[in-house]
């Protein structure tokens, strides 16, 4: 704990390691066996309704250097951040979250279990993300329908949605269960369950069950190829998600047409 600044009111579990130059605020509640890197700020003071509310960091979490976590947020057990991650106040995250370096979550967000965000993802204030959501690098989730304004029209990404690299999700967009936004897409409106949306016009191209990679012989839903990267307790839910995505194919074929 050398070189750290820990507020006497902070609650710190057993086996916690804290790096050099890290500051732990009064509202911090840190679970057992967490590892916090150098130069982090845990329970940064927030304003408004979140002032003085606890920052709960679940047990076994790993917070890498230069990360800033505001008070009034919850990170579930076994969460991990990369370096230079920012999580603003009022954000509620389920367990087993992974956030890549330089990503930011702008507060008042709800994020389900086992979410995966690669580096440089921007998650606008108020975003609602389900379980097993994937955001790749340089994805942007917007919330202001007419900037600059105080209007809030946050996005919703349901369970298993995938947003590929460089994609922008416009204010108010809804990506239904298992839908997939290809790289450099602009997503707007409602994307049906299991649909693949692509391009700057956000066209519905196909259903994820048709997505395949020839060289590797793999295909969607991604749970077929990637479930092994999740904890044992999540496996049954991943299987249920996979079945739900496959089942959405029939509705897609009936109601949606590629455009």
């Amino acid at each position, binding site marked *: 704990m050398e070189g750290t600044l820990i507020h006497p009111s902070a609650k710190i579990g057993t086996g916690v390691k804290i790096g050099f130059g890290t500051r732990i605020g009064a509202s911090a509640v840190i679970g057992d066996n967490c590892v916090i890197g150098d130069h982090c700020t845990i329970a940064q003071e927030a304003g408004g309704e979140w002032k003085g509310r606890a920052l709960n960091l679940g047990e076994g979490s790993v917070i890498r250097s230069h990360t800033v976590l505001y008070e009034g947020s919850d990170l579930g057990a076994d969460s991990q951040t990369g370096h230079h991650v920012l999580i603003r106040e009022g954000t509620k995250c389920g367990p087993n979250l992974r956030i890549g370096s330089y990503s930011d979550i702008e507060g008042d967000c709800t994020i389900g279990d086992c979410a995966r965000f690669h580096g440089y993802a921007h998650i606008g204030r108020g975003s609602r993300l389900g379980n097993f959501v994937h955001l790749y690098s340089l994805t942007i989730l917007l919330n202001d329908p007419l900037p600059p304004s105080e209007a809030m029209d946050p996005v919703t990404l349901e369970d298993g949605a995938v947003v590929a690299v460089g994609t922008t999700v416009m204010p108010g967009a809804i990506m239904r269960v298992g839908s997939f936004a*290809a790289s450099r897409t602009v997503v707007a409106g409602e994307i049906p369950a299991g649909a*693949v949306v*692509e391009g700057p016009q956000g066209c519905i*191209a*196909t*259903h*994820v069950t*048709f*997505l*395949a*990679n*020839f*060289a*590797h*012989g*793999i*295909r969607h839903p991604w749970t077929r190829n990637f479930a092994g990267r999740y904890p044992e307790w999540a496996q049954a839910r991943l299987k249920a998600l996979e079945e739900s995505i496959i089942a959405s194919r029939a509705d897609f*074929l009936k109601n949606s047409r*590629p455009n």
Partner: protein
Amino acid sequence: MQRTDILALFKEILSRQGKPTDFAEDAELTAVGFRSLDFSELALRVEMAAGVTLTFDAAPLRAIRTVKDVLDFLVAASTSGQQ
């Protein structure tokens, strides 16, 4: 579904992206600019046109390299698919 019909859909998808469609069937997919995303759209269109559920196995997928491979694969899949 007929091979010629699938080839027409193949070319339509490329044409919409402004890509040339005067290729030989032995052309590599990378050379004609046919992406995996395009394959998924083509497969969807074949399924809708053929009225069957296509089933994909990993091994034949891995063998796909050329336009001909895609056509062979989808002809077979649309013939053996479930009604």
